[in-house]
């Protein structure tokens, strides 16, 4: 087994895709909705705002929509599901020997640069998910599977945006 490569412990992409598709279908079949990720993070942000400055939740329509009700912001299937993602991801990583403290980066950039870029990229993606009402999980994957026109448009826009800047930013990763 090749020490440097994790490839033997990753699934064939097509078989992994079938497995993911079965999970996604099970979600639709049992609960009526697909999978998600960024929605749970939006609830976490709202919970934070609600704790630090309760008034801000009531005066900002965006936060009010997520946390204005009597029910706790965090008492939502998306939040439970993300807890599951963390458990499942950790278990798989542990079994494959990939759950190791590390920071991945391109060969040309320093760890501090990578840290700053991860934050910056997260910031853009976080803002983008809310503008497009979903991320690659809740919008592209879930909406794509049930044939939502907007989800397919979003998916192609993600690939478009990424390919547009990949070459100019090639020094980050190559």
């Amino acid at each position: 087994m090749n020490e440097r490569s994790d490839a033997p412990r990753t699934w064939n992409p097509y078989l992994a895709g079938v497995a993911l598709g079965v999970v996604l279908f099970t979600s639709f079949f049992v609960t009526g909705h697909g999978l998600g990720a960024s929605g749970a993070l939006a609830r976490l942000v709202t919970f934070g705002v609600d704790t630090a400055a309760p008034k801000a939740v009531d005066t900002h329509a965006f936060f009010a929509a997520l946390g204005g009700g009597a029910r706790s912001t965090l008492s939502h299937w998306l939040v439970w599901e993300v807890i599951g993602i963390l458990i499942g991801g950790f278990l798989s990583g542990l079994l494959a020997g990939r759950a190791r403290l590390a920071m991945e980066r391109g060969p040309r950039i320093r760890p501090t640069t990578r840290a700053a870029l991860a934050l910056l990229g997260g910031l853009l993606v976080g803002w983008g998910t809310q503008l497009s009402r979903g991320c690659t999980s809740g919008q592209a994957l879930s909406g794509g599977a049930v044939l939502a026109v907007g989800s397919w448009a979003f998916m192609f826009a993600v690939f478009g945006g990424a390919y547009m800047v990949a070459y100019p930013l090639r020094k980050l990763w190559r």
Partner: protein
Amino acid sequence: MAPFDVSVLGRLGEPLVSVLLGMAFGFVLERSGFGSAKKLTSQFYLDDMTVLKVMFTAIVTAMVLVLFATTIGILDYDRLFVNPTYLGSGILGGLIFGVGFVIGGFCPGTALVAAATLKLDGLLFVLGVLGGIFVFGYTVPEIDAFWNDSGNYGVLTLIDWLGLPMPVVVALAVALAFAFFAGGEWIEAWMRRKRATDTTNAPAEGSEAATRHTPVTRHRPILRRLAIALFGTTVVLGLLWHPLESRRKGALAARIEESIRLRKVQVDPRELADLYSEPKLALVVLDLRSEAEYNRFHLLDAKHLDATALSVATTLPPKSIKVLVAKDEAQELAAYRHLALARVENLYVLAGGMPSWMRLFSPQDVETTRLLALGDKHVASRSPAHDSSSRLPAYVPTVKRPGLGSKKSGGGCGG
């Protein structure tokens, strides 16, 4: 009949189901290698198309399974959460997302998996996402109109948009996915050849190229079996689609009866009057009474709809609010059932039929108007002024505005 109401499992039912689904989701994402920013961004540098392969295989697999369950009548497609389409904000958000993906190396779900496997960059990315959402919460009032109104089509599926039956749309999506797979395999092979040439021509670069090399195996046999399975299933389901129509209609009919029983489709006359005065609303009042009755008196802008030619109503714009009006509610509901089965959306009936409107709004006896050929010139055909309706007791509103939010709450990850 799926989908189910998980709340029947008790207070812990939904959390339990959600955690289990999340665990499976996280496990598969990690097993795909998606806990690694390098692996993910390789998609955009063309040497490893795993992201494309996993994503499109997952989408078409789930899609074919949804088609299967729908065709044989064990799943109600109309009750699934379908993300509403906001074309403008969705595309701009996607472009910004794509840029952030390359800079940060993740998307939210994969960053969570990376963080769970102790990758610091994953954790930082998640913190960045939280920051981005926080900023959005404060900046959204500035772009509210764009966020909500740019290309807002409400719930719009490829089935509606293309006007094709579901199995045909699924077959097209599967074909597109396999075209991408073929392209992806071709690009990977081309990059491998290119790398090999680079290595021979420039030995100094060789060692670096070797460390960058991602092992890629050939997937031809799996791809072929997958194509046979997905296309085969779709074709078989396509052949069964029409023969099993009655099974699906049975489920739809049951849901229609439920809405009627719960009075979710009956619009109070006072609500209809308020709808008239809503400027942005596309309201279509369809009068089902005889031509003679219609000519003598009808509501303002009402269109006459012959009860024997109901199918005309299926050509009306889907987002317009359609209210059926007749001499009584039973006649309205008969037409309602017929049109709702033909999947006419945003369809309602006037509660109590025309008499309930006249009782509220006609200053004269209804009988006197019957003698005159007034069309809509009678005072009672106008929507009453605001002051008159405000004197009336409140009603329970029935009509849902299309395109403002989803038909079913709480789906997706948009929040």
